Structures are given as C-alpha cells and as structure tokens.
C-alpha cells in the first residue's frame, strides 16, 4: 500500500516507544500523538497522555500535573520540536534573528525549558529538514541539549526524527549520529540538507515502511482518536471524517 511521509513517521515513533511506560504528548504534536496512540495499540500497558485531549488524558490536577509528574520521574518519554535545532541538540521555539525584535516569531518555549531536563527519553521531532531549521547554532536557546554535570538533569534528547531520517543523539560526543534514512533519501541528501555536522553509523539502515495493517489502523481508529484533538490534521492528512 502506498503511504504518506506522515504515516511513516507515525510508525517510526510507535517503534521508538517500544520500551516506554508513560509517554506524554504536548502542544502542536499531531504526528507524535498518533504515534503514541499506535504504540499503545501494540502494548496496551503503555500510558499515553495527550495534552488538549479529553479522552486520551487522565490528568485531574490541571496544567501543572504534567510537569509535576515529569519531575517525579513518572513520565519516561516526551516530544519536543523546534523552529531551529542545532548539532548540540539545543532547541529554539521562540524565533529567528536577534531576540526580542526577531524577523520571525514563533509561539514560544512552552514547557521545553523544563521537560528537556526531566524526561529521560525526549524524542526531537521535526517535519521539516533543511539547512534552514537544522542549523549550526540556534538563535535562541529555549532549552539546551546538554548541561554541565552539576546541573540536575535525568532527562535529555535521545533521537531526532525528521521527514528525511532518524538520528541518535550521543551524549558522549555530544552530537547526532545518523541511524537510518527514510526511503528515497541517502546519506548525501541528508548531509546536503543539514546545517550541522553529524556522525554516521557504520551501517545506516533504511527506515522501515508502514505495513498494510498499520496503515489501516492509522487511517481508522488511530486517526479518529487523534482527530479529537487535531481535527484538521486527521481530515487533511489521514483522510478522516470528523
């Protein structure tokens, strides 16, 4: 069955969540949300908290509960993005240019400056992948990729998933290492479109494509479930009527 890039990313995210016990999905994250719901379909014990959802969110203590929960170690996976991400895994959700009168302004840092430190497996996710957003140095550090040893930091980046490839983040470098390229991409196309230097694994794989069964789920119950929170995404990308 033919598939869309968004569907490949949803499946890749579900694969990345295999060992996790509680994944939370923050604002503006329809693809991570769908990936988390697909992962739960496979392992029903996985707890999924989709912010902004009434049906896939069991928090009862208001907006702060997610953050309190994360600080206690009760959430082991979260997604962060960035208008810019650099080779040190620093992320920028604020804007492009010199702060504050920037040429382009984005919504803001949300909870990134905190959750990046506290959630052990942060999946960096970006649908875009060009030298414009994957840069050598971010213009504003919403949240740093790494910290000095003395800073309390059980959390941090583990991978960066984009529309072209999947990188691992190696704390010891620190930096990214190319793990797999999506079908149609090569090491060369990834290098050409990435504004930071990165390592290349000895055996770069091609990212696994979705199975027919996975596509049926995504275009069916998973799509309808994420449509509660992201109706436009469910309708225009997954073809769901909601």
């Amino acid at each position, binding site marked *: 069955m033919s598939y869309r890039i968004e569907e490949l990313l949803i499946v890749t995210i579900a694969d990345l969540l295999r060992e996790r016990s509680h994944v939370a999905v923050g604002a503006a994250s329809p693809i991570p949300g769908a990936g988390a719901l697909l992962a739960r379909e496979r392992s029903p014990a996985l707890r999924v908290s989709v912010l902004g959802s009434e049906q896939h969110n069991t928090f009862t203590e208001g907006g702060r509960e997610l953050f309190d929960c994360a600080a206690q170690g009760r959430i082991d996976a979260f997604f962060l993005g960035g208008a810019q991400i650099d080779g040190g895994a620093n992320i920028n959700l604020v804007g492009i240019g010199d702060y504050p009168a920037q040429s382009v302004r984005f919504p803001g840092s949300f909870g990134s400056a905190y959750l990046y430190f506290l959630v052990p497996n942060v999946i960096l996710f970006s649908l875009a992948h060009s030298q414009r957003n994957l840069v050598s140095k971010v213009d504003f550090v*919403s949240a740093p990729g790494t910290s000095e040893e003395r*800073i309390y930091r059980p959390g941090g980046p583990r991978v960066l998933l984009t529309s072209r490839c999947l990188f691992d983040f190696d704390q010891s470098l620190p930096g990214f290492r190319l793990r797999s390229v999506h079908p149609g991409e090569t090491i060369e196309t990834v290098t050409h479109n990435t504004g930071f230097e990165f390592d290349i694994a000895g055996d770069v794989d091609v990212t696994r494509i979705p199975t027919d069964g996975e596509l049926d789920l995504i275009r069916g119950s998973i799509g309808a479930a994420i449509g509660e929170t992201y109706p436009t995404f469910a309708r225009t990308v997954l073809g769901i009527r909601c």
Partner: protein
Amino acid sequence: MVEVVDLETLVTRIEDGTSIALPPDYSGCAMSAVRLLIERGVTDLRVITVPQGGLQVDLLIGAGCVSVLESAAVTLGEHGLAPRFTDAMRTGSIHMRESTCPAIHAGLQAAEKGLPFMPLRGIIGSDLVRYRPDWIVQDNPFADDDPIVLLPAIRPDVALFHAPLADTDGNVWVGIRRELMTMAHAAETTLVTVEEVISDSLLADERTAAGVIPSMYIHGISVVEKGAWPVGLWGCYAADHDNLQDYVRRAITMEGFNEYLSVYVHGSAAASTP
C-alpha cells in the same frame, strides 16, 4: 455573598493597568468579557497567560490593550501562529516576559501558598534565564553544589475566565480544570462568566464539590450563554473553527484585524454572538 451582575458591570472591575491572568483556549475563556473590554478601550493590561495564550490574548494585543505579556507561548493551535502577537513582537509594541509553562504554574502556586518564591527544576542554560533578570539561580541549601532556579510569586490583580456552572452562593464549578482553581487562589480578584447559575449549592454534594472554587475566592459572576465563543468550552460546545479560521486569515494584516473587530466586537454581530 457574590453578586451576579451584568457583564458591563463585571468588566468595569478591570481597570487600565490591571495585571490579569487568562487561561488557554481549551480551558474556559471569557471571550464575551474580553470583547467588551476591547470595546471599552481598556489599556496597559499586563497579561499573564496560564500558561499559554490563544485567541483572547491575540485580540487584546491587536486592539492595543496590552503593554506587558508574561507567557510561555501564544498560539492559535491548528489554526496557526497568533498574527497580532507575532507582529507585536516584531515591532516591539509589547514588553514580553518570556516564560515556560511550569514556571507560570509554579509562580501562581507560590502566590496561593502566600510564599515569596518557588524553586523549579530545569531551565538552567536556557536563554529564558538571560532575559528574565527576576529569575535567580541559587544553590539548593539542602545539598552540595546543586543549582536551582528560584521564581518570584505571580500574584495577578485579576483572574478572568469562563466556566459552565455557578450556584447562587457564588461557588463556581470548574471540574478538572484546576489551573482555573490555582488562578483564583493566586489572584486578588477573580471574575467569572458562566453559562448558567443554579440555586442548588454546588458544595452540597461531595461529587461536585471536588471541582468547585468556593465563593470566598470569587468576586463577581455574570451569566453569559456561549460566553467562550468562538473558542470551545469543555463538555458544553466545540470551538467554532470557521470563525477561528476567518480570524487567522484576516488578522494577518492590521486592516483585516480591524475588519474582524468591526464585525465581531464593535458591530451588530457583537451583541448577538451565537
């Protein structure tokens, strides 16, 4: 005893220069009250979003009502960037106190505990610390070499939101939208619009009492049906996505924004919003 007043009377409590806490689009926004504030031409508001802002914040900024904004983000969600906020940041017409979601929750929690500050994990090494001179990095006094961020309490003059239900004693039901509870505890004055006021006490039954802000924190209530429109109200009605789409399309330019205001805030549609 909390007085149930008309909306005009309620919004007169919000004067020029007020610091005002507002919820995000998904948590009960008093949009009718905000439209009336804009029509009244309130100025110099110091807005605190709990923790992010949506349509009401973009409207207030576009209408020139805001001088200072403390926020973790301003967004219209799936409808896109908040155009008037984006423009105000570019031109520098508002002073931005850049924040992160848990810092706003923690600041309000400090206020509800009557504390001067609250410590919070993370944030160290973020540029937020650079641009927030009021945030202090200090050593944890209970450990060796453990720097931690201290945030000053956030005590808004006013908290303003919309909820489904109040009773005639002035208790307000917010269910699990506990950020509204925190806002009410932290603010000096809490003003609420509701869909409906009932005569049976919401505190009489423990099953509803758990989600109720007691009247001692509430200073004014107005009944406004569909008071959150065009954003949604949980359990009551969904957002009017066509209107939000229309807003985003128009508000890209100041002319378009003013057209939207003339129809939905100043115009005949303002009085008869669905």
